[in-house]
C-alpha cells in the first residue's frame, strides 16, 4: 500500500497549485463561485484560438518552395482533390487523392524527366544506367491539419535531415509541396514519381497544448491503396517537442531499415522507441 506515497508531501494543503505541478492537465484552476475565474477563461480561449488559427491558416506554398530552392532542391506545388478547407475537413477521401490538375502536372513532370534522361543517356551511354534509376525517396511537404506546423518546422527539419540523406547516397525525387493534403496523398505522389519510398511531412491536428506539431509518415513502395499499418510515423516534431536532429536520426534509421527489410509499417522493427502517432489520418 505504498503507491500513494509517490505523491510528494503537500506541505501547504490550502494551495491546489501544489497539485498542478504534478501534471500538464488544467487542475487547481481559480474559481469564482463554481465557475472559472476570468484569467483561467482567457487562458483556455487563448490556447483554443491558436489551435483554430493553425487549422485555418493558409498554406504559404511560395515561401516553402523558395526555402527549398535556396537549399538546391527543385520542387513542384500540387493540390489534393479537396478544393478548399471546408471540403478538406469534411471529405478526407478527397484529401487522399490528387486534383486532376495535380495528376496531369505530375505526368508532365515524369515525361519531361524521362525524355531529358533518354537524351542525355543517348549522348553519354556509359553513365546511362545510373541516371535512369528511379529516385530512392520522394519527399512531400504537406499542410495537413496545421499549416503553421509546416511553416515552423518543415525547413529546419530538412536542414537536419538532408545531410544524413546525402551521406546515405539516396537520390531524392522532386520535392512536392502539397495543399489540402492527407497522409495517404503521399501514396499517389510517390507512385507517380516512381520512388522506392515516400516521406510526407505533415501538420498534425492541433491540440490545446501545441498547435504547431509536425508529423512524418514513411511508406515503402508507395502506391494508392496502402493502409496505415504499412506506414511508420514520427510524431510531435516541434520546438518543445521532438527535436529536429533526433527526428532526422529516427527517420534515417527507419529508411535504412525499410530498404534493408523491403517493407515499412508494423513489420519494420527499429531499436529506438517511436512516439505514438497522434490522431490525424
Amino acid at each position, binding site marked *: 500500500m505504498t*503507491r*500513494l*506515497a509517490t*505523491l*510528494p508531501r503537500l506541505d501547504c494543503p*490550502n494551495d491546489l497549485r501544489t497539485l498542478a505541478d504534478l501534471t500538464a492537465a488544467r487542475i487547481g*484552476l*481559480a474559481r469564482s463561485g*463554481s465557475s472559472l475565474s476570468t484569467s483561467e477563461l482567457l487562458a483556455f480561449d487563448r490556447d483554443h484560438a491558436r489551435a483554430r488559427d493553425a487549422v485555418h491558416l493558409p498554406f504559404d506554398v511560395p515561401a516553402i518552395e523558395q526555402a527549398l530552392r535556396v537549399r538546391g532542391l527543385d520542387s513542384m506545388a500540387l493540390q489534393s482533390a479537396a478544393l478548399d478547407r471546408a471540403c478538406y475537413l*469534411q471529405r478526407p477521401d478527397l484529401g487522399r487523392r490528387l486534383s486532376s490538375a495535380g495528376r496531369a502536372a505530375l505526368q508532365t513532370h515524369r515525361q519531361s524527366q524521362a525524355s531529358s534522361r533518354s537524351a542525355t543517356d543517348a549522348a553519354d551511354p556509359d553513365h546511362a544506367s545510373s541516371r535512369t534509376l528511379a529516385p530512392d525517396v520522394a519527399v512531400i511537404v504537406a499542410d495537413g491539419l496545421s499549416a503553421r506546423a509546416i511553416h515552423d518546422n518543415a525547413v529546419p527539419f530538412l536542414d537536419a535531415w538532408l545531410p544524413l540523406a546525402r551521406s546515405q547516397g539516396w537520390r531524392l525525387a522532386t520535392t512536392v509541396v502539397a495543399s489540402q493534403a492527407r497522409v495517404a496523398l503521399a501514396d499517389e505522389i510517390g507512385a507517380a514519381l516512381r520512388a522506392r519510398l515516400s516521406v510526407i511531412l505533415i501538420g498534425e491536428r492541433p491540440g490545446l497544448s501545441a498547435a504547431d506539431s509536425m508529423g512524418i509518415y514513411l511508406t515503402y513502395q508507395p502506391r494508392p491503396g496502402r493502409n496505415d499499418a504499412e506506414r511508420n510515423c514520427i510524431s510531435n516534431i516541434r520546438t518543445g517537442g521532438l527535436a529536429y536532429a533526433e527526428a532526422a536520426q529516427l527517420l534515417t534509421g527507419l529508411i535504412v531499415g525499410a530498404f534493408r527489410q523491403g517493407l515499412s509499417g508494423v513489420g519494420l522493427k527499429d531499436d529506438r522507441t517511436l512516439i505514438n502517432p497522434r490522431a490525424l489520418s
Partner: protein
Amino acid sequence: MATYRARLGTTSYCFEGLGDLLAKASPLKSGDGLAGVAARSEEERIAARYALADLPLSTFLNEAIIPYESDAVTRLILDTHDAVAFQLVASMTVGEFRDWLLAYETDTACLSALAPGLTPEMVAAVSKLMRNQDLILVASKTSVVTRFRTSIGLPGRLSTRLQPNHPTDDVTGIAASILDGLLNGSGDAVIGINPATDNVQTATHLLQLLDELRLRFEMPVQSCVLAHLTNTLLAIERGAPVDLVFQSIAGTEGANNSFGINLALLQEALDAGRALGRGSIGNNLMYFETGQGSALSANAHHNIDQQTLEARAYGVARQFEPLLVNTVVGFIGPEYLYDGKQIIRAGLEDHCCGKLLGVPMGCDICYTNHAEADQNDMDNLLTLLGVAGVNFIMGVPGADDIMLYYQSTSFHDANYLRQVLKRPPAPEFEAWLARIGIIDTHGRLAPPGLAAPLLQALAQQTGDEHP
C-alpha cells in the same frame, strides 16, 4: 426490397428500402454525405420524412435494414424483441408514434414499460421526425436508473465521470487530477482513466491506485480503466480490483469485429465482472462508449445512416444491463459531425434514443479543434442535455484532455449545470462530499481558501509514507 414513395407538389420521390428511407430522412450530417447516403436536397429530405411518418412501426419487425442472416446485431434486436410490450404502440405509424410520445398522458411509467418493445430502428425513425425540443421533452419523461456503489440517473440528479487522463499514464499526475476532480465534486458516475498504452500491467497498476484511494477515503465510487475488454478480462484473471468493464461498441457485427469484440465476448466479460461481486448496491457494471460514425469509419455501415446505426449500438448495450452508456459525440471529427449544430443535434438524438430503449445514457459533450465548434457550442449542448435529464457527463480537468487531444466538459461545467438546474450528484456521493467537507449544506463547494479535509488527510497520509 420494398420501395417507399412520397409526392411533394409535382415531384415524386422514391426510396429503395427502409435503409434508404431512414438515411434520406436524417438531418444533415457530414458523415452521411461522406457515406453517400444523405438526401440530395432539402426537399428530398422532407419527402423522406413524409414517407416515414406514414410507415407502420411494425414494418421494422418485418424488414431488417441489415439482413438477419448476415448480422449478429440484427439477430439480437429481433430475437430479444418483446412483442407484448410493443402492443401499446403496435398499431401506430411512425408519425403517430411521435404524437403519442409527446402527449401529456404518456408518462415515465408508460415509457419504461414500452422500452423492451421498441427496436433501435423504431426509435431512430421517430427521432428523425422530431425537432430538438421534442428530443428533449421525450427524453425528460424517461427514467433509467442503474446502480453499482452509487445510484445513477435518479430524477433531479446529475452524475459525472471524472476523467483524469495523462499522456504517459503517470500515476502521480493521474492522482493529482483525481484529487482536483474530487475537490470539485466530480466522479460519482465513475472515475475512469483512458490508458495511454493498452497493456494489462498498466491497467492493473491504475486499478490498484483507484481502489486504494476509494478504500482510504471511504468513497462511494466505482472505478474503471478503459482498456480493451480482453485486457480487462486478463486483469480480472490476475486478481486486479475491477469494478466496471469497459468496451467501445457499435451497431453492426462488422464494426464490432473491427473493435475486436462480439456479443459472446461481451457476455463473458459481464459474467466475469459479476462473479467478483464488487457492487455494493447494484450489479450494473458494463461501461460502453459509442458515437455516430464509428461503423462508417470501420467500413461496416451497410449504407445505413450513422444515427440509425448508433441507435443499434444501444440495442447491443441494453442486452448487458450497463451502468453507463456514453455517446462520445464530437470526438470523431468534422468528417462525421461537421459543426456545433450537427454535434448538438447528434447529442440530443443519441440521448433520447438511448433512453427510449431503456439505456442509461450519458454524453461526452465534446469536439476536436478541426471541427467548426467551440466551448460555447458545448455550453449549449450541456444545457440542453441537462434539461433533457442526461444521466451523466464528463469531468475533464479544464475541459482539456491532454492525452486524447480534444475538448470536453470540465468539473466547472458540471457545477454550472448543478447550479442552474438544481441537480446534485448521486445521493451516496453527495452525502460523502458533505461528510468530508467538500460541499456545504447548500451544496456549494467549500471556498478555495479553506483547506478541504480530504486534501489535509492526503497531505498527512502521503507525507507519512513518503521516505
